[in-house]
């Protein structure tokens, strides 16, 4: 019977549809959306659709270009999508229609005189200079306002630049070989957007529970006289608070477990979230979110007021706290908010501890700033919190 209040609060929360949606389901939806959007935007599983219009006929230049296109439109593993898929078109007009209607992302056009000019370059480049008009040109057409189209065009230009280099080398034009090597900086494992968002959405879920749900509920309980009614019974204030906190912690654990299982099953996230330091950041996130909730419950007079204030605070906190995208290179106009925002440190700390991305901040600040925020919020709350303008004896 001792835990009856905790049990009642838990039952109450589980029977509330809004709680179930915002705390348990919404993080899954947001996680899915973010991973789908951002993984597609950055090359993971990218597949551009390209139309090739060749006016040049047979020739060495066009043969090389077609060989390149064949290479980039096939994969070793038949299950993988190639970088480019070549879409057959009858003529340029049809290709333009398809581009405008977003059925394709880019058009590559090989002009009529391409092979002629290519041959001139190959045979006469060493004995005379080639005029601009006679250079072999490939036309790449895209829709700049469409991100995918612009990206397809940029990548294509890079590929063609590589082709130029290769051709120059074959013509014995002296161009030094450039060796490109890749190295992971601030990363100890392969970058995976699902892992990146897992940390962010996890913190968002905690704040939805501790900050919004608990803060608004505390205001509701006071406003509706529920705290006042409890004050007429022998229950201690400390038990009341601990049951409230404990029930919200259970919701956080549920939110965490459901999100983790989902992310593991469908997005194959790593177990990095269970590194000891990651767990420490999870605990700090939980405590800080509850502190925000207690603060909200202290300063708000009505549930509507609490809801409004929570949204005003939490909206910029989550978007300028690095939960969904990097924030340290934002414009100076908002950077001050990034640096005072405790979520910035939690998100950065969590990702650093998971080996995803090093924060451009001293490591100790990642712990210290959220802990300072927690202390300040609790101190203010203790000073101003009211059960009903009265006191529990």
């Amino acid at each position, binding site marked *: *019977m*001792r835990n*009856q*209040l905790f049990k*009642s*609060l838990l*039952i*109450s929360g589980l*029977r*509330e549809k809004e709680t179930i949606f915002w705390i348990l389901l919404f993080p899954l939806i947001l996680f899915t959306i973010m991973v789908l959007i951002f993984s597609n935007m950055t090359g993971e599983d990218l597949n551009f659709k390209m139309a090739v219009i060749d006016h040049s006929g047979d020739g060495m230049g066009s043969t090389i270009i077609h060989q390149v296109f064949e290479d980039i439109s096939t994969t070793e593993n038949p299950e993988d999508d190639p970088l480019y898929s070549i879409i057959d078109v009858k003529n340029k007009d049809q290709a333009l229609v398809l581009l405008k209607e977003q059925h394709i992302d880019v058009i590559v056009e090989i002009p009529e005189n391409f092979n002629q000019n290519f041959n001139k370059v190959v045979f006469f480049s060493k004995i005379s200079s080639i005029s601009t008009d006679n250079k072999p040109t490939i036309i790449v057409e895209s829709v700049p306002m469409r991100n995918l189209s612009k990206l397809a065009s940029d990548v294509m230009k890079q590929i063609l630049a590589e082709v130029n280099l290769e051709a120059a080398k074959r013509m014995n034009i002296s161009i030094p070989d450039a060796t490109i090597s890749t190295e992971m900086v601030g990363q100890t494992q392969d970058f995976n957007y699902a892992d990146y968002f897992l940390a962010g959405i996890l913190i968002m879920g905690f704040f939805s529970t501790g900050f919004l749900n608990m803060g608004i509920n505390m205001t*509701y*309980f006071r406003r*509706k*006289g*529920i705290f*006042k*009614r*409890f*004050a*007429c*019974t*022998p*229950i201690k204030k400390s038990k009341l608070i601990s049951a409230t906190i404990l029930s919200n912690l259970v919701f956080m654990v549920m939110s965490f477990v459901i999100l983790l299982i989902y992310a593991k099953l469908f997005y194959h996230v790593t177990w990095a979230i269970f590194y000891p330091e990651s767990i420490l950041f999870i605990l700090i996130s939980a405590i800080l979110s509850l502190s925000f909730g207690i603060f909200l419950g202290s300063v708000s007079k009505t549930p509507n007021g609490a809801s409004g204030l929570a949204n005003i605070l939490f909206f910029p906190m989550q978007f300028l706290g690095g939960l969904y995208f990097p924030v340290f290179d934002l414009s100076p106009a908002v950077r001050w908010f990034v640096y005072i925002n405790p979520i910035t440190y939690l998100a950065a700390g969590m990702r650093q501890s998971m080996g995803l991305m090093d924060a451009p901040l001293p490591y100790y600040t990642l712990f210290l700033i959220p802990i300072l925020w927690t202390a300040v919020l609790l101190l203010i709350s203790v000073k101003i919190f009211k059960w*009903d*303008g*009265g*006191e*529990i*004896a």
Partner: protein
Amino acid sequence: MSKKILEVKNLKKYYPTVKAVDDISFSIEKGTVFTLLGPNGAGKTTTLEIIEGIKKADEGRIVFFGEELKQVSDEAKQKIGVSLQSTNFIPHLKVKEVFELFASFFKKSLPIEEVIGFVSLEEKRNDLVEKLSGGQKQRVAIGCALINDPEMVFLDEPTTGLDPQARRNIWGIIEHLKGQGKTVFLTTHYMEEAQKLSDMVCIMDYGKIIAIDTPSGHIKKLGELNYVEFAADLEQLDIDELNAWDVEEVEIEGDKVIIPTKSLHIVLEKLLSWAKRKELDLNDISIRQPNLEDVFLSLTGRRLRD
């Protein structure tokens, strides 16, 4: 010999703009129904909440169960049951779960089913509280106040806003409690309720106690007054003419004329012949005994409902 269960002495609670409780003293005997009667804003709820331990008094003494307390202790809270003016519970709990929750707060509690039966909510035990009617919610609130089998029950305006049937149900519960020998501290602004249920009625106005007595004691103080009431076309009436008879001050309430008098026969004869002479129709004519509403009027110069 009667035993005092609660004594309140010189209790004060002042707010910046109002003296909510202004130096009041009273005592309650065990096994009685004690009612604070007064209009909204009289200070009834503030008085009750100070005694219940929700609010702190600025000054005054409270002797509860023979022990002087600055504020109600946890030990004292084990012996009291409270139903507040506004009835709200943790949302989405069933009736039975609400009782289980409140039972967990006390060292001893009655069986849940017994309490459910006492407040006649057997069929609603598995319903969510927010789905209940106002009267049913109020019964849940009273059930919560009774869950610890308290010696004293505080009921703050338990029938406000309820329909007549629901109100009578609550009255039945209070009479039952009285029958069990429980002490009930009731606040209300319904004079009929106070008159029907109370052993003692304490009339409050503007934070002060203006009279304490039994309901019949209050009424007796009005003397042998009777009230002749009738409805008439007020434009044809000359009140001064009526006041010239052997009556207390004649009162108009809506289209109703109320004539308080100690000389009922004489006034009735005069009234009928006066109406005949004036060719006035006297509708809904009735004679009634005085009630607590009349007591309040005679003490304050205004009606409780004003």
